[in-house]
């Protein structure tokens, strides 16, 4: 395997809460190879967006970050904003969940793409507009030249998200972070956009970190999936292993709550209960209170992320692969 483009090690992110601090991301490790599409799943509040914002350096100033985010061999944690700004929009781009509010309502979309194009490259306005037209064309917007002068409110949600993708791609970044890019859109548009994202990997050689609730989406385009639960990574696996042999009961639950492959599942209905309050965590495995298989041992110590072979990892002492390994 080639050297990873993004290598996250022992990443922890805390926010001040009352007198203390609450960890939104707790000792997270994963990596992304060039051109790879890594998915992050997990229920609401598990720390997916905070992780994404940390990568691109857009956490609010009160966030405390420790650990390492190595991007193309360079640690971004603690890097001054000036240098992070040089990477943002150039080496990495990001698209967000809300296409309706992610574009500035008072500027034309052309304006906003041109700004991104010229942020890191000296270019005449004319050349930048040509490039913007090209980008709109690439992301599948018909009659792109004319669309440049549209304001965001003149476009549908799907179109706006395409514009967001065009902005994120303006300088052919090595990494694209997509935080639930299709959640707010209807199913057909969702499928088109996912196709588009997938195609970009081939055209631009971009690696993608895709955050989604939707296991069906993962099955379709992810190479590898990181499952987060309550600020931690509980499982990581290649896409086939994940679906065929999930090792963590939480992953199993997520898969069980996906009614049918390719269909949407916004709610994780089959896992009973809710995530523990991050300010008052139970001892031991954080999933134990909701786990049908939990045994006494589960509530005594936090299980580490066990290496299970084939790049699969799970933080469960009852992981089936762990059992068979122990038997042999």
């Amino acid at each position, binding site marked *: 395997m080639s050297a990873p483009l993004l290598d996250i090690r022992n990443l922890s992110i805390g926010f001040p809460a009352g007198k203390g601090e609450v960890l939104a991301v707790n000792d997270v490790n994963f990596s992304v190879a060039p051109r790879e599409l890594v998915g992050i799943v997990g229920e609401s509040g598990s720390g997916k967006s905070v992780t994404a914002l940390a990568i*691109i350096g*857009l956490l609010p100033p009160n966030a405390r970050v420790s650990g390492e985010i190595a991007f193309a061999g360079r640690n971004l944690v603690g890097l001054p*904003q000036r240098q992070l*700004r*040089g*990477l*943002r*929009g*150039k080496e990495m*781009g*990001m698209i*967000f969940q*809300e296409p309706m*509010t*992610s*574009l*500035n*309502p*008072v*500027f*034309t979309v052309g304006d*906003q793409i041109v*700004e*991104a194009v010229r*942020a*890191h490259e000296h270019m005449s306005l004319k050349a930048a507009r040509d490039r913007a037209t090209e980008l709109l064309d690439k992301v599948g917007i018909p009659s792109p030249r004319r669309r440049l002068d549209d*304001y965001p*409110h*003149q476009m549908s949600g799907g179109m706006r998200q395409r514009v*967001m993708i065009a*902005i*994120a791609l*303006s300088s052919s970044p090595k990494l694209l972070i997509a935080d639930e890019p299709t959640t707010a859109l209807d199913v057909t548009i969702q499928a088109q956009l996912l196709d588009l994202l997938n195609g970009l990997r081939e055209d631009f050689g971009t690696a993608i970190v895709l955050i989604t609730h939707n296991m069906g989406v993962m099955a379709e385009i992810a190479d590898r999936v990181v499952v987060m639960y309550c600020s931690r990574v509980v499982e990581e696996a290649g896409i086939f292993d994940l679906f065929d042999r999930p090792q963590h009961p939480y992953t199993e639950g997520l898969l069980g709550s996906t009614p049918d492959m390719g269909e949407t599942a916004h709610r994780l209905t089959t896992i009973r209960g809710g995530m523990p309050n991050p300010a008052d965590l139970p001892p031991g495995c954080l999933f134990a209170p909701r786990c049908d298989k939990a045994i006494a041992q589960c509530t005594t110590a936090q299980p580490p992320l066990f290496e299970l072979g084939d790049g699969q990892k799970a933080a469960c002492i009852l992981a089936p692969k762990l059992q068979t390994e122990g038997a042999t």
Partner: protein
Amino acid sequence: MIGYTISRLLQAIPILLIVSLIAFGIIHLIPGDAATVIGGPSATPADLARIRENLGLDQPLHIQILTFYANLFQGDLGRSLLLGIPVTEAVLARSPITIGIAIYSLVLTIVFGLATGIIAALNHNRWIDQAATVFALIGVSLPNFWLALVMIVLFSVHLGWLPTGGYVPFTQNPIGWFRTATMPAVALALLQAGLLTRITRSTMLEVLSQDYIRTARAKGISEWRVVGRHALANVMMPVVTVLGLILSVLLSGSIVIETIFGIPGIGALLGNAIASRDYPMIQGGLFFITAALLLLNIVVDVLYTSLDPRIRVTGGK
């Protein structure tokens, strides 16, 4: 856009007529009348009756207002009883003075209000923010005439830097104009600047938390550009909507302030007219001020619709 402007202008006409009617009613509620002022203390009841007849004050009220409307449609606002010249002429002669000070005051308001509000928002919850909030609170709660008097005592009486009052036309002596216009302009600006600081600060805070600001930052552009272009363009819209309100407060405040500083503008003209029961002058002066405010508010609204593309394209409300 043009259709919108025209319809707004047409809507202004009934408003003007109604305001004139209200003004008329209020004027006639003030005790005493022009005849007693003109006739002086020695006038006999017969003198007063003659004066009233000359002025048409003996007519029933509804005839008086109808006469006013009839003349108005011919562009005639009557003659000032006190000055003996047409009201229109008196108003036009004085208005440049008031407009000059109003513009000066508006510039101070916008510069200080916007700057303080933006700086406060960018330093949210730090001491600069708190200082700005206190400043804004003082601004909106201090009466402007009180501030005017304090400034006169401080800068004119004690320090002797500026004259206590009077007026020098700008065309005659620009420095003299600044020396006479600065204290009135500052006194008028304080309230508005406080108001504008508050609005700018809260709008800026809200805009800065919007998704499109995060998008702008994700492009890797400078923070200057994020705030100065992406945020400010969105902050300006609500700010422009309060400009109409600010102008109204400014013009009404000028009556008191011009009187304190002895500035011969519209405010002082109207103040004197009220004191001497100069009915045509009061009625005509109020008509002009109302018309000016309506017009300014229309300008502000048209400006607003041209700032916001969401309204611009759909062609106004």
